């Protein structure tokens, strides 16, 4: 079954077209890299898929639920890390994760074990009793991912999860995402190609609101070392 089905998705901000008739599918269990230059429409697409904003035209389905017609059901299937991790600075990491568990409908008795599970998975167990505002950028990003993992959603949508991290943290976050393969379908956006190469199986390249490539990693690189970079530069040239 396709985890994400998008057909003719268009978003206009007044007269500016952010994304233009996008259509693509993502199969269950895949890790997909969603690439494109800055301002290509990556975040817009993700915001529509997660139900943060509606499309101007077109359809999007997550795990079979239309995100416009059945928003609540669709949102239950999704864990989402926005560009800026949505952490309340006044709450502790534990308090924050508990709040997320409650609004995501985790049964009362399982909240505690769920927090322990995602904290362990993202390596923030030692930080659980610190305030969100006191966290370093790397930990903020991890807590953001931990928040997305709560409730064990089928689909994870991560918007630039490694943005602003140092190389070591970046590597750790990538390994963390790689470890999620199999249990979750993951869509991650980035403009850093090296990251995609290490963890993604499928690549979607978006440029000026249109899909310019939708291929498996092997097909797009053609076996060459710099295949992805060459292809990316070629496709997003104008």
């Amino acid at each position, binding site marked *: 079954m396709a985890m994400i089905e998008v057909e003719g998705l268009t978003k206009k901000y007044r007269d500016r077209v952010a994304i233009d008739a996008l259509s693509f599918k993502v199969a269950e269990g895949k890790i997909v890299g969603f690439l494109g230059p800055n301002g290509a429409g990556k975040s817009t697409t993700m915001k529509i898929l997660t139900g*943060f*904003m509606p499309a101007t035209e077109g359809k999007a389905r997550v795990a079979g639920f239309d995100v416009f017609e059945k928003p609540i059901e669709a949102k239950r299937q999704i864990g989402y890390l926005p560009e*800026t991790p*949505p952490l*309340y600075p006044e709450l502790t990491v534990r308090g924050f994760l508990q709040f997320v568990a*409650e*609004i995501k*409908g985790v049964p009362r008795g399982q909240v505690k074990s769920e927090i322990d599970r995602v904290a362990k998975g993202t390596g923030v167990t030692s930080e659980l009793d610190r305030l969100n505002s006191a966290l370093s950028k790397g930990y903020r990003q991890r807590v953001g991912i931990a928040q997305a993992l709560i409730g064990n959603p089928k689909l994870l949508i991560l918007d630039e999860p490694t943005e602003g991290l140092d190389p070591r943290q970046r590597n750790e976050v990538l390994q963390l995402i790689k470890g999620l393969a199999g249990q979750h379908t993951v869509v991650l956006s980035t403009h850093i190609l090296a990251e995609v190469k290490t963890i993604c199986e499928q690549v979607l390249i978006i440029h000026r609101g249109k899909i310019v490539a939708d291929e498996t990693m092997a097909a797009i690189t053609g076996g060459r070392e710099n295949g992805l970079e060459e292809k990316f530069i070629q496709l997003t040239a104008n």
Partner: protein
Amino acid sequence: MRNIIAIAKKELTVYLTTPWAWIVFTVVSFVSSLFFIAYLIQFKDAHEQIRTMDGGWEQIGPDAQYLRNLTDGVVMPLFSTMLVVLLFVVPFLSARIFAEERRQKTLELLMTAPLTSFEIVLGKYLGGLCIVIATISTTLVYPVLLTAFGSSFSATTAEKTMTLEWPVVLLGFLALVLWGAAIHSIGTFISSLTESVIIAGLVTLCVSLVWLVIKLAAPNAAGILRDVLDYVSFEYQLRNLLRGVLDLQPLVFFASLILVFLLATHRAVESRRWV
């Protein structure tokens, strides 16, 4: 329901871990204590003066008769003053409710969680309302003090006037809560329109000040305008509750007002999805 409680609980935690609520509690306690002392002195002076007069209270005009007992002479004037104080402080409690989420980009979390906009608005409103009620409750310390120590007056004056009528006090408290809840609903709506807490607070304050102007302007207007201004002024709506008469009209008036502004907030939150 669980979602609404979860959001309200989160709001409470945020209020109580930031200085906002504590500053408001402090300011309100300080201001109300000044007025309490002033009203108490006025009350005491009146009674001392009466005692020296022949005929006592019968000699006094109807305008000063309210000073005869503690409830009408001290607590109710204090509550009336608190209405104006609330008008200045509640806007600062409600200002951050949506604006702060927008600024910190945490609204994205709420909007992409399996919640309806209705649950988000109601949860946030109720969380803030708890703080508004807590603020108002700080003034209950004065009736409590009067109950505990007011009886020491009674040796010298008629027994009955010195015991506090708690049902009347609680109706006055209800009037304050209705008023606070109404301003809070307006503030919640305005907060949902902006990213800036300061702007939300100041605009709400301006809107509440219009209400104060209405109260001041009503006696000077004439004809139908006067009737209308009178009707929408909070003092007119709450006058019976502050006299200790349980009146349904203000309940309906303020409940409708709160409902209208919560629906408007709901529309504002929804429309943000459609930009």
